[in-house]
């Protein structure tokens, strides 16, 4: 499998993500016009879903390196995910202290 066909899976996935983003944030706007408090809840959930896109994309990058047998870069991709998760956990912890 060549580079372009490997990456075409990610292209399709990202296109799907764009549709999801448009859908969820359109809902946010509509809810915002109806009920401001509900818009905050929907907005919070939508932003968290949007934040999940980056780790998912990095998982895909890690898989790409696994199939091309580049272990070092595969590990680096997983480190990125760990940093994002740690940052989120650390902030949550600070919020609750």
């Amino acid at each position, binding site marked *: 499998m060549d580079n372009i066909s490997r990456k075409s899976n990610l292209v399709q996935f990202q296109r799907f993500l764009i549709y999801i983003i448009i859908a969820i944030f359109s809902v946010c706007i509509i809810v915002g016009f109806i009920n401001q408090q509900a818009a905050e809840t929907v907005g919070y959930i939508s932003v968290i879903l949007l934040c999940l896109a*980056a780790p998912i994309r990095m998982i895909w*990058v890690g898989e790409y390196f696994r199939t091309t047998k580049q272990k070092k870069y595969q590990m680096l991709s997983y480190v990125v995910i760990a940093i994002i998760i740690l940052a989120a956990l650390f*902030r949550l912890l600070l919020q609750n202290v």
Partner: protein
Amino acid sequence: MNQLYLIAGSIVAGFVGGFLGLGGGIILVPFLTLIIGVPMHQAVALSLAAIMANSISSSNEYLKKDFVDFRLVAPLAIFSSIGAVFGSSINQYIPADYLKIIFALFLLYTIYSLLKKKENTQTESKPAGKPNMKLICIIALLAGIVSALIGVGGGIVIIPAIYLIMNYSINIARGSSAFTIGIIATAGSIVYLFQGVLEVENVGPVILGMMLGAWLGGKTGVKAKSIVVRLVFSIVLFYLAARMFYEGIN
């Protein structure tokens, strides 16, 4: 805050950004603060959230043409996300006026790079070998801090560094940067979200407005790339920079 104003402002910011081939943040932050009246810290957080979504659509175009080098993306993403977490954490302790001054200086640099920009037709990547890790660390850290601190994508730091210093092709530089920017923005946005700086109900209008504006700007910008257009927009950017600076020092 009126969501219609936010949508309209974001469409305009996205359009200008897409038209000039700039990241959205460099236009969105001054639009939100100067024209719509959003406080600086919130504008930075909103801009980063919009960049998260924009990076997905912009990097897709480069992925299709195999212009994203994941061997560059992985180390860039590590150090830039560390920088972004740091930048967004210290943002709260920097007064809005100082942020405005920093942003104005950054806008001036953008004007400079916009005016000296040359049309590049090079499409093939140069044989770059293994990326220089030490250099990547420094560039990525800097890009992450700047990006999260003032709400810009970080491409303006990453692209020249990859292209001019590391000798990759301009397309690889743009593609890898477009992909990495989304990771930087996510790391910064998570911190802003849990700090309570990010006004979640305003994210939707900004993201959708920016996406629509960038799409329209991208379509129109292809037809008009002359120096005259860049000069006209540079004057607009200079006005925004001057106002940001003025508000910062007052």
